C-alpha cells in the first residue's frame, strides 16, 4: 500500500524533511519485515509508535500528537 507510505511521508516532511521522513517510514517497514510499499493500514499502530519514539525527543508533544492525528486522518 504505497498510499500509506506516501501519506506518512507527506505529513512528516514539513517537520523533518523528505529524506528523514522517508527513512523513518522505511525503517518501520523493515522492522515489520516489509518494504515501505507493502505497509498496510494494519501497520498503522506500529508506524505511529515509531513516529512517536523518533519525534518525541525532538518535537513538542502536542506537535507529535497532531502529526499522529493527521496521519490517521489521511489514512481514513
Amino acid at each position, binding site marked *: 500500500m504505497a498510499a500509506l507510505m506516501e501519506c506518512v511521508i507527506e505529513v512528516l516532511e*514539513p517537520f523533518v*524533511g523528505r529524506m*528523514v521522513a522517508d527513512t523513518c517510514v522505511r525503517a518501520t517497514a523493515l522492522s515489520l519485515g516489509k518494504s515501505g510499499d507493502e505497509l498496510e493500514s494494519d501497520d498503522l499502530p506500529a508506524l505511529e509508535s515509531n513516529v512517536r519514539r523518533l519525534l518525541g*525527543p525532538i518535537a*513538542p*508533544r*502536542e*506537535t507529535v500528537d497532531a502529526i499522529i492525528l493527521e496521519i490517521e486522518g489521511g489514512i481514513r
Partner: protein
Amino acid sequence: MTATGTFSRRTWAVLVLGLAGALAVQILVATGIGGERASIAISDLGGVAVIGMAAAVTIRTALRFGKGEPLQKQWLAIGAGITLYVLGDLVWTYIEVVQGLEPPFPGLPDIFYTSMYIFMGYGIVSAALAYRGLVRIKAAIIGSAAIAVVSGGAIYLVLLREVLADPEVGLLEKVLNVYYPLGDVLLLLAPAVFIVLVVAQLGRGALAVPWRLVVAGLAILAVADSVYQWMEWQGTYQTGSIVDLGWMIGYVLLAAGASVMRDLIAPARRSVR
C-alpha cells in the same frame, strides 16, 4: 516559525526588538553621550536588559513544554546558561557602575560566566543527541571533534602559549585564561558544529530552524569571546567595545531560536482541537 515556514509575530518581535536594542545600546555608547561614566552605565545596563530579555524568552519557551519532555530539559539548560551570564553581567555592572570600580579578574562575575558554558554545552549536546534515532550522528560527532581539535590548537598557538608562559600571571588567572577560550571551543563551538551537522540532514524540515538560529548565535558568541580574550590580553578591551554588540546579538539569536521552537507547537494545537 510554523511548519509552513513562517515566523510568528512573537519571534519577529524577539528578533527585531532584540537586535534594535543591541544596536541602540552600541550607538549610544559610540556617541559618548553624557561622558565616560554614562557610556559605561549605558553599555552595562543595556547589555543586561537585552540579554536578560533573551534569558526570559528562552526560559518561558522551556516552561511551555510539558514536564518531563526532552525539549524542556534542553531549553531549560540553555535558558539557565543565559541567565547565569546575565547574573554575571549584573554583578559586573554593580561593581563598575554603582561602586565605580574596575571589575576584578578573576572576580565574582567569573563564577557565573564559567558556569554558563556547562549549562549551554549540556543543552546543545543533549539536543543534538536526541536526533540519534532519526539521523546519522557519527559523522557529526567526528566533524565537531575535528573542529574542536583544530580550533583548540589555533587558540593555543595564538593565545594560550603566551598566557601559560607568562610568569607574572597568577595561577587562578591562568586557569581562567585557559578555561574561557577552551570553553568557547569545547562547550560552545564544538556542540554548535555537532548540532548543525545533525540538523543539516533534515533539509528544509521546520525542526531544524530553531537550531540553525542557535548555532548562528553560538558562533557569534564564540567569536566575540575570542576577540574579547585577545583584546583583554593586549590590554585594549574597554566596556562598550564592539565585542559587547557581538554578545548581545549572539544571545538574541539564541532567544529567537527558542521562540521558533515554541512556534512549532501552535499548528499542532489547532489540529488537535
